[in-house]
């Protein structure tokens, strides 16, 4: 059950770490090109204001200032496309109207960043403030329009049960309505907030663009998750062929989905570089990041369970308003749709889900670790616990009762209408209950309560969808195809055995901290039998890497991994041909073992990879018709996404005097299919849990009624630190996927998707005896205390 080694490799140390830990990693801001000038942005202090005039003269006259650009200078270039272009796309610079605090109004370029900041302060913008719409319900009522040109603030509605089938949806609604009429059912309903979060990578975004007038080409360094997409976007924007734009994503210090956008500043910096004939750099400041990089989550919804008194759920409904912010960016409106994918979790019961995408005068939301899936699973797993409490049933039993049975896999169709690759939910639950000692935990809780301690436990199931790569996704019409990208998100990998027997692997995807250089070396090493130390993995340079996309949606191992695996197999097949020729044996008799090729039954008749590689680059030594070189490039397009799952358990203690929540234990039984490197998988779960627990306990992007972000600095936006978290107790079941040859599913987001509701369930369990039924996240002490007061005073918590 607990995997300590893997069929693919082992817990080898991350090859990235010596550089990263010793400060040898090179990030965009570390890259210096001679003659570089620096950009800063003038940002709107108003959430909604007409821009009457912009006076740039004083800034332009400052010594060392090269240019000040406003909307009319760049209008012809924009806007950057969004994958699903509904709502209002973000203008490159605010064009007559500012629609959220922090929106870029003008760009200043100067000799230094400090000077650019000074000059930005000298730009005089005349704003005429207008009423701002911040509250989701108010926005959805359409009393005040966010953008005059839109018909409604609700820019799109996702509905499912099952998705895309209107007849099916109507039927499900009818089924649930009928269930509610039955005498033997309970209906449990709760409005809940899944609050806005600010993705906070250690490295803020940064971009450095250089235009070579002689060669008529761009070289752009960016802290991005999607270098190929950025190259395509810049090429299209400036009317160039995509091979005239080289994007390099060097070390990227965290992304979490927030760098999965093509940002206006990336295009604007390229524009300025072309205009000025100088490299231009922009590094986002920590303080501007919350309003210049996308935020995540931001749902207000009501979840309802209708079920029998013995635990059979007859219907689940979720109606939510999802905050899109002021402008639609890359995946903005697609994020709730990812919630639709997993809306019914691990369960087989009728579901009706209606998610309204609402625009407001706030920063845009988009993908943040989990992206739609943590929100959807939060509502489902929170309300299931309230249902379990209402009927007095163990939370584990309620879940077990409603799982999609293992017999329906592979390819079970979830009630939301999507086929799920593989799953064995009961096995995973049982493993969690047994391995972590569920009964003993409950006993421990009850004993603590006898001592007067407010201890609670929470247990939840989750299912994730990830590994996006199916070609069919292209049918949804993602706009990246306009940037020359395969909008189906295929994976790609190239494996090249060099003449000295070392291996260069170049991948179309790239890491933002996930350890691809280690994992991909393991994938290739496993097939070729060449030591990982001899394999180097390259990524992030569109000039050398095969067409690819990037790391997001926990997709790289499941989509680009198999492509690289396939390329390694092709290299091995060619090496077998060469070996057969040189050893004068039949190709089918060639065996690869211990880093050598030998003839079956004659281990002495062997050639090392060094010898094979040397021969490969001397075509006269090769069999007739076989081209020189020893490399292969492969593309992998999976038939489906992958669907990891798991069971999470938390134990908490609440100080009812202060409302302080102490997370005592966190236990996770995940199933991400086959594991390549257990240590890296554990690390991904750790990071995911930290971010899920951060949402549950600390983080909150709070806007006031005028649209000012009150938590724009890390003083007021508390992030979890290592000292705030217990030692995570992790274990795994392994249910390989059948849609890729590696059996891997993906693990980048599972920790986040599984955790927030587990914490909240545990806290509510601790306080249920006091009358508390729900507390909205984050469970900061003041909220917990207020909920206890409200419950004890008899009002609804």
């Amino acid at each position: 059950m607990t995997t300590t080694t893997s069929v693919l490799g082992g817990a080898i140390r991350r090859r990235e770490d010596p550089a990263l830990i010793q400060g040898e990693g090179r990030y965009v801001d570390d890259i210096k090109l001679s003659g570089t000038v620096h950009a800063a942005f003038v940002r709107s202090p108003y959430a909604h204001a007409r821009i009457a005039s912009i006076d740039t003269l004083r800034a332009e006259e400052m010594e060392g200032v090269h240019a000040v650009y406003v909307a009319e200078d760049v209008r012809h270039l924009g806007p950057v496309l969004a994958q699903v272009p509904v709502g209002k796309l973000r203008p490159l610079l605010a064009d007559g109207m500012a629609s959220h605090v922090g929106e870029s109004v003008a760009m200043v370029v100067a000799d230094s960043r400090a000077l650019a900041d000074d000059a930005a302060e000298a730009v005089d913008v005349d704003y005429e403030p207008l009423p701002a719409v911040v509250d989701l319900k108010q926005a959805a009522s359409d009393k005040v329009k966010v953008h005059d040109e839109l018909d409604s603030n609700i820019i799109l509605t996702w509905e499912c049960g099952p998705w895309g089938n209107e007849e099916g949806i109507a039927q499900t609604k009818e089924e649930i309505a009928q269930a509610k009429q039955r005498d033997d059912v309970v209906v449990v309903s709760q409005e809940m907030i899944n609050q806005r979060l600010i993705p906070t990578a250690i490295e803020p975004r940064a971009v450095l663009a250089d235009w070579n007038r002689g060669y008529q080409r761009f070289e752009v360094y960016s802290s991005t998750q999607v270098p190929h997409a950025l190259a395509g976007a810049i090429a299209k924007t400036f009317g160039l062929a995509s091979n005239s734009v080289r994007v390099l994503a060097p070390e990227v210090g965290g992304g979490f989905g927030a760098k999965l956008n093509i940002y206006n500043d990336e295009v604007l910096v390229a524009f300025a570089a072309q205009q000025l004939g100088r490299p231009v750099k922009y590094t986002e400041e920590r303080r501007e990041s919350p309003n210049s990089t996308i935020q995540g989550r931001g749902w207000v919804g009501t979840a309802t369970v209708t079920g029998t008194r013995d635990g059979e759920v007859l219907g689940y409904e979720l109606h939510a308003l999802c905050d899109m912010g002021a402008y639609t960016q890359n995946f903005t409106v697609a994020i709730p749709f990812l919630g639709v994918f997993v809306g019914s979790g691990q369960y087989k019961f009728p579901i009706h889900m209606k998610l309204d995408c609402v625009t407001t005068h706030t920063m845009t939301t988009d993908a943040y670790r989990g992206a739609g899936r943590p929100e959807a699973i939060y509502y489902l797993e929170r309300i299931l616990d309230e249902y379990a409490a209402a009927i007095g049933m163990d939370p584990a039993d309620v879940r077990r009762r409603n799982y999609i049975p293992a017999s329906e896999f592979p390819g079970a169709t979830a009630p939301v209408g999507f086929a799920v690759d593989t799953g064995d939910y009961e096995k995973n639950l049982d493993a969690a209950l047994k391995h972590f000692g569920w009964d003993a935990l409950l006993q421990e809780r009850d004993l603590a309560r006898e001592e007067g301690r407010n201890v609670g436990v929470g247990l939840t199931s989750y299912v994730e969808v990830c590994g996006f790569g199916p070609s069919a996704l292209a049918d949804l019409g993602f706009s990246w195809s306009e940037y020359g990208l395969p909008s189906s998100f295929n994976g790609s990998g190239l494996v090249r055995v060099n003449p000295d027997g070392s291996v260069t692997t170049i991948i179309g995807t790239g890491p933002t901290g996930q350890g691809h250089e280690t994992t991909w070396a393991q994938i290739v090493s496993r097939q070729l039998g060449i030591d990982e130390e001899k394999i180097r993995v390259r990524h992030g340079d569109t000039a050398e890497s095969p067409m690819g996309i990037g790391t997001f949606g926990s997709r790289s191992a499941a989509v680009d991994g198999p492509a690289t695996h396939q390329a390694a197999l092709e290299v091995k097949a060619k090496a077998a041909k060469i070996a057969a020729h040189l050893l004068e044996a039949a190709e089918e008799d060639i065996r690869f073992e211990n880093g050598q090729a030998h003839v079956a039954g004659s281990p002495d008749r062997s050639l090392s990879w060094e010898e094979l590689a040397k021969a490969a680059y001397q075509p006269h030594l090769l069999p007739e018709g076989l081209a020189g070189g020893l490399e292969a490039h492969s593309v992998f397009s999976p038939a489906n996404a992958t669907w990891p799952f798991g069971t999470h358990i938390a134990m908490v203690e609440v100080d009812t005097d202060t409302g302080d929540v102490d997370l005592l234990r966190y236990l996770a039984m995940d199933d991400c299919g086959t594991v390549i490197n257990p240590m890296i998988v554990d690390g991904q779960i750790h990071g995911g849990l930290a971010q899920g627990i951060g949402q549950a306990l600390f983080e909150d992007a709070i806007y006031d009624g005028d649209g000012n972000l009150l938590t724009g600095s890390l003083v007021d936006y508390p992030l979890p630190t290592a000292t705030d978290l217990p030692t995570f107790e992790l274990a795994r079941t392994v249910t390989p996927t059948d849609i890729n040859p590696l059996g891997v599913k993906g693990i980048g987001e599972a920790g986040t998707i599984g955790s927030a509701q587990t914490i909240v369930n545990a806290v509510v369990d601790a306080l249920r005896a006091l009358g508390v039924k729900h507390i909205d996240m984050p469970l900061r002490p003041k909220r917990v205390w207020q909920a206890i007061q409200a419950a004890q005073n008899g009002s609804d918590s």
Partner: protein
Amino acid sequence: MFPRKFDYVAPSSIDEAVAALSDSEFAKVMAGGMSLIPMMKLRLLSPETVVDIGRIPGLDEIRDEGDYVSIGALVRHAQTAASNLPQALVDAASWTGDVQVRNRGTTCGAAAHSDIAADQTAAVLALGATMIAQGPNGTREIPSSEFFVDAMTSALEPDEILTEIRIPKIGGATAYDKLGRRGGHTDYAVAGAAAWVQKDNGSISGCRVALTGVGTNATLAEGVAEALVGTDGSEQAVKEAAERATDGVTVLEDLYGSEEYKAHLAKVFTRRALTQALSFL
């Protein structure tokens, strides 16, 4: 962001530093820089001159001076946390910021900066410390009870430097407890209380309680001392005294708590700090 332009001076004596302060229209003293530099980078504060006292010798010591212990202007939080100063101050210093902040930031700097949610301000106040300020007209003593004036405002004149905090050796026992913004003792205080108590012949002969995080600045909870002195210091007496924690204290709401909640926490931590201090006697 980068700070606006400023002049930087690094004097080698307090006198030079005071002169530099007097010479400038708007100068700020920098010791550890843990609060000043972020404020300058956010352009919330743009001094004309930064006077870095970091190179002045002799300020980085905690010295026993007989009647009192002296904390020099360059004593870091980490030094205070590792010292044998009274427990309230030791704990307050050890729960300030994080390791990096504790290794650079100074106890005197935290007092001079007078953040509304600082830890050591409450401890200094409960301990009845004397603040030593040096300015162009020489040195003056400011009682800690008159030092913390308002949010980020101390009794120091713009051309004065807090060179020393003197902690009197008054016996008794002390404690500090708080709720941090990330729970437990982490981060700035949502609310916290420092307590000093003394007992003679079975009854409380001296008491001082100071609050932080609840108002604009660290404040003495005078009602508590009044209620507790003369009692036997029993659980009940402490509980009753703690109920008076916010008597005459202005409690303000912020992102971390409503007025009601903060007032409640002031009582909880007053009770906890007193209980702990009494347990040492």
